């Protein structure tokens, strides 16, 4: 069917596009000094930039006293988690490292990038002078585990299923190990804190809210009126309420509804609150994705004999979810940062620890250093998520229209 109309053209000498070599001055003139007001803007910006950079530099490298970070390092990471039981945190990190390594070995691509990133972060912590000897050892072991997992992956039969199951099981495993639940000595959740707590709450909220969000979105588009109106009511009520209110509800009101003696742990309550909150937003994202799929796809699925659930699973959902990766990741990043609100309801997450450290008389006036440090931590994690999302969009974009 190929009509090769172009064959004789390819024999001719192809004409190259004109070279655009401006040189440094040409580039400057074109982009920065093209006319008088651009020149003024450029000069003002350069001056402003100079003072900002100089200010930041002199603070970070000269006047800041970073000892507030190094001395409270463990607090920032795990809060007041019992020192003797800290190996449990490391073990959980080890499991995650192994899963990262295995994923990198199986799926390459994005998973490999994320594993490298994790290893680099671990390595940086290993190299900074103030981490203790044991911590350095654990960090080294974890890097080893990532590499081990990467090379081990091809030799495991059914490695994909095992790894995916591993990711799912890693949540209950982490909670179980951190708490102990009587098998090990129990570490009460009120001492969980710092980055550990922030990550736990946000990961649980993001992961669990995802399937709930899908169900809510499907419910909202359902033909059954009870299901439909329940979902609409749920989504609209939750979206109309600030997250902090949900946290207060979870902390203060849930205990009132429960029978005497039954008590839900405060960390769990916050996790439930965050999950239910995020689920409402996820639902609207998913609904947006569903609407972006042309009706022809659903008709074609029906026409070849697929039933409703099959069409949803194989045809509609995969395309809808792919279309909303940016929205889902945006939601996840925003949830991750919003966990800092739990500091207000009395949990000592990363921000809570920061406030505790600042109020310590030994570190009076060190709030700049502390806030800069936790801002950096938040940024690194949030940026990793957005980086992963962009990689994923690219690799899933293959074969798109």
């Amino acid at each position: 069917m190929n009509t090769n109309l172009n064959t004789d053209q390819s024999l001719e000498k192809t004409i190259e596009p004109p070279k655009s070599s401006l040189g440094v001055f040409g580039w400057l003139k074109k982009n920065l000094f093209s006319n008088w007001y651009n020149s003024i803007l450029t000069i003002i910006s350069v001056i402003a930039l100079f003072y900002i950079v100089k200010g930041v530099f002199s603070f970070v490298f000269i006047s800041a006293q970073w000892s507030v970070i190094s001395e409270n390092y463990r607090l920032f990471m795990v809060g007041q988690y019992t020192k003797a039981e800290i190996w449990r945190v490391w073990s959980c990190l080890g499991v995650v490292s192994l899963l990262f390594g295995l994923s990198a070995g199986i799926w390459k691509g994005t998973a490999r990038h994320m594993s490298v990133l994790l290893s680099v972060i671990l390595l940086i912590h290993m190299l900074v002078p103030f981490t203790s000897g044991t911590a350095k050892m654990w960090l080294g072991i974890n890097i080893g585990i990532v590499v081990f997992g990467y090379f081990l992956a091809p030799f495991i039969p059914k490695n994909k299923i095992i790894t995916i199951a591993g990711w799912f099981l890693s949540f209950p495993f982490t909670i179980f190990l951190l708490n102990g639940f009587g098998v090990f000595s129990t570490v009460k959740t009120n001492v969980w804190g710092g980055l550990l707590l922030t990550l736990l709450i946000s990961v649980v909220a993001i992961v669990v809210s995802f399937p709930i969000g899908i169900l809510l979105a499907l419910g909202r588009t359902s033909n059954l009126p009870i299901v439909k109106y329940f979902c609409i009511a749920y989504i609209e009520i939750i979206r109309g309420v600030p997250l902090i209110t949900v946290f207060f509800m979870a902390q203060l009101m849930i205990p009132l509804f429960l029978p005497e003696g039954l008590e839900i742990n405060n960390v769990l309550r916050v996790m439930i609150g965050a999950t239910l909150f995020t689920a409402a937003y996820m639902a609207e994202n998913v609904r947006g994705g569903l609407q972006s799929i042309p009706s022809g796809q659903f008709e074609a699925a029906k026409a070849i004999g697929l039933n409703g659930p099959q069409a949803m699973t194989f045809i509609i959902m995969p395309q809808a979810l792919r279309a909303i990766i940016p929205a889902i990741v945006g939601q996840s990043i925003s949830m991750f940062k919003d966990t800092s609100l739990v500091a207000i309801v009395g949990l000592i997450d990363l921000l809570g620890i920061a406030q505790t450290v600042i109020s310590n008389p030994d570190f009076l006036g060190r709030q700049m250093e502390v806030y800069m440090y936790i801002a950096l931590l938040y940024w690194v994690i949030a940026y990793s998520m957005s980086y992963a999302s962009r990689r994923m969009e690219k690799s899933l974009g293959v074969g798109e229209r």
Partner: protein
Amino acid sequence: MAEANIAKEEGKEIIVCNGVNKWFGDLHVLKDVSLTVKKGEVLVILGPSGSGKSTFIRTINGLEEVQKGDIVIDGINLSHDIKDIEAIRKETGMVFQQFNLFPHMTILKNITLAPIWVRKKPKAEAEKIALELLERVGIPEQADKYPGQLSGGQQQRVAIARALAMQPEIMLFDEPTSALDPEMIKEVLDVMKELARSGMTMLCVTHEMGFAREVADRIVLFDEGEIIETGTPEELFDNPKHDRTKLFLSQIL
């Protein structure tokens, strides 16, 4: 042509439509449409746009609900019973104007999805059939590509293969060449002609008059939701009885 005739001589009525009525809101789009199609027959449905021909063909596999009247496909009544509708969809393949391939799956996956999940065929067998079908529509080398990487004509041929993979009794074509560039129309029509010759029962909504004249056993002319005239291509093109048929033909020929 010989085998097609044999198939026709069976004379089994595979589609029976009786007094089919449909409304979109207040708009009466199908008015008492009655039509019978025999096994192996190739039926071309013509008519101006908005005449209800596409709606009609979509009622046959239940993509559009009928409010009044009966449609019986191969002995199964297309009632509102979802089990019956799913049974009929296994019997009928459909090809759409916009191809409607699944863009996130390879060509091979597009074709094998329904045989594996609906017909419960083993994967290897489904893939073997899929490759044979791709051979039949002339693009065996495209199996591992994604729909977006194919030309319109190739995509439509994949869509035909996907419908055939369910081994349907009836093939429905809803303006299969209307979204194609002119140089690609022929490759799709060639596949459809080959299919017609092999004895498949076909209902085609199309504007390709050459195809209608060459392949159709019978032509049905729709206007304003009604069947205006039915006849062989010769009768209809050369000797139209109805004024509206004459008007329509004068506009397109």
